C-alpha cells in the first residue's frame, strides 16, 4: 500500500482547522473528515495511529460519559433530588430515590439534611445522551459526600496524563506523598493526606502535571521534584 500523506509529525502542536491528513484516513477524537481530508477541531497534539488520526486537546470542556466518576457541587436541592455542578455544559441530577433506599415522602424527608447546597460529592454518571441532563448515582462504596481533603482543578483532558501509562503516575504520586487521591473525570481531583504538608506536595505535583502535560519524561521529573521537596522539609526539621 502506498503511504498516504500526513502533514505533521506525531505529537506535534496543531490548531483548529489544521489539515492533518489526506486520503484514506479515519477521523478520531477532536478531528473531522471533509472531502477525504482530516482537519483538527482543537488546539492539541496530533496522534497518527495506523489509519486513525486524533488530537489530544490541551484545553477542552468536560463532556459526561456513562460510568465516569465525577466530583460535583450541589447547587440546588429540589423535592425529588439534587442538582450538581459537574464542570460540564449541563447540570447533573442526583435523584433522592438513589440515596434513600426506602420509599420517601417529600413532606417528611428533608433532602437538605442529607446533601445541602455547597456540599461536594463523588458520584458516577449513569445516564447521559445530550437530550437530557446527566443522571448521577452515589450507590457504590467509594462514592458519596466528601468530608475531608482538598480539591484541585485541572483541565479535564489531562486526567489521563495524571493517571499515566498503566497508572504509573498516579500510583507514584500516592506512594511518594502518602495521600489518598480521587480523580474526577471532569477535572476535579480530591487529595486527602495525613498532614497538610503531604497534601500541599501532592497538589503542587498535580499542578505541575497539568501545566506540563504536553512534554515528555514527565513522570521522572515529577518524582525528582517530590523527592527534592521532601528532602527540603526534612532539612528544615533538622534545623529546628
Amino acid at each position, binding site marked *: 500500500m502506498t503511504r498516504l500523506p500526513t502533514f505533521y509529525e506525531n505529537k506535534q502542536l496543531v*490548531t*483548529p482547522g*489544521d489539515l492533518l491528513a489526506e486520503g484514506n484516513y479515519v477521523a478520531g477524537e477532536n478531528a473531522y473528515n471533509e472531502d477525504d481530508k482530516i*482537519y483538527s*477541531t*482543537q*488546539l492539541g497534539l496530533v496522534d497518527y495511529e495506523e489509519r486513525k488520526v486524533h488530537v489530544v486537546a490541551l484545553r477542552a470542556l468536560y463532556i459526561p460519559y456513562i460510568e465516569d466518576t465525577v466530583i460535583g457541587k450541589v447547587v440546588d436541592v429540589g423535592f425529588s433530588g439534587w442538582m450538581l455542578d459537574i464542570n460540564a455544559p*449541563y*447540570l447533573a441530577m442526583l435523584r433522592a430515590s438513589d440515596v434513600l433506599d426506602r420509599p420517601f415522602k417529600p413532606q417528611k424527608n428533608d433532602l437538605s439534611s442529607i446533601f445541602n447546597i455547597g456540599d461536594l460529592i463523588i458520584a458516577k454518571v449513569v445516564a447521559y445522551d445530550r437530550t437530557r441532563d446527566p443522571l448521577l448515582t452515589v450507590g457504590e462504596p467509594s462514592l458519596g459526600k466528601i468530608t475531608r481533603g482538598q480539591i484541585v482543578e485541572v483541565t479535564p483532558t489531562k486526567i489521563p496524563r495524571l493517571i499515566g501509562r498503566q497508572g504509573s503516575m498516579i500510583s507514584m504520586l500516592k506512594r511518594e506523598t502518602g495521600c489518598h487521591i480521587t480523580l474526577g473525570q471532569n477535572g476535579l481531583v480530591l487529595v486527602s493526606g495525613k498532614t497538610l504538608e503531604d497534601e500541599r506536595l501532592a497538589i503542587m505535583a498535580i499542578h505541575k502535571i497539568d501545566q506540563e502535560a504536553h*512534554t515528555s519524561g514527565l513522570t521522572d521529573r515529577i518524582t525528582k521534584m517530590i523527592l527534592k521537596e521532601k528532602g527540603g522539609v526534612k532539612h528544615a526539621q533538622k534545623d529546628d
Partner: protein
Amino acid sequence: MPRKTTKKLIDKNGIRADGRKPEELRPTKIEAGVIRNADGSAYIEQGKNKILAGVYGPKEVHPKHLTLLDRALLRCRYHMAPFSVEERKSPAPSRREQELSKVITWAIEPSIFLEQFPRTSIDVFIEVLQANGGTRCAGITAASVALADAGIPMRDLVTACAAGKVEGHLVLDLMDVEDKMGEADLPLALMPNLNAITLLQMDGGLTTDEFERVINLALTGCKQIHTLQKEALKARYIAVKKAVEKQ
C-alpha cells in the same frame, strides 16, 4: 467624494500616512489566555487598535426561552469602551454596535460545531479598548482565538481583514482616516484552511475589476493574520516546553 485634505493620505512614493506600503498590514500582536475568569480569552493589538475578547460557555442559556433544542446558541457582543475614541462614546450599545454584534456572530457561527452542545449558550464578549479603524475585523480575529483557547471544537479559525481604495490606490488594512476619507472599504472574514468566506461587506464604490483585486488583497492579509493567530495559540505551550527542556 474624497474631501480635499491638507495632508495627502498617500504620498507620491506610494507611502501611506503612517509610513506603510499600500499592501502592508499594521504591526499586529495577538495573545491568548489573558482573562483568568473567562473560559477562553484573547487580546489583539493591530496598529492603534486594542481589543479584548472573552468567551464564556457552553453553559445553560439565560433567559431560558432562547434555548435551542438542536444546537448551541452563539451570542457575540461587540462593545466600544467610552474612552476608545477621541470624543467620548456613550457606553450604551449604539445602533452600529448592535449591527456589528450581529454580523460578527454570523461570521463566527459557521466555524463552530454548535450541534455538539444543544441547549447551551456560548457567549463571546468583544471589548474595544482603543479604536482606530478595522475593529470589526480585529474583533473577529481575537474572538476566534478566544474560542479556540476555550477548547470549543471548531471547523477552522476565523481570520478577518479589510482592504479598500484610498486616493486611487488599492490598500490593505485601512485605518480610521483612510476609512473615512477613502473611496472604498471592504471587510472580509475567512476560514483560511477551508478557504471559505464568512463575512463580506463593502462601503463605497469599486469597479468589478478593482473589487476582485481588493478581495484578493484582503485574502492575503487574512493569511498573514492567520499565522499570527496560530502562533498566539501555541505560544504558551511552546514556552512551557522550552523551559522544561532547559532544565
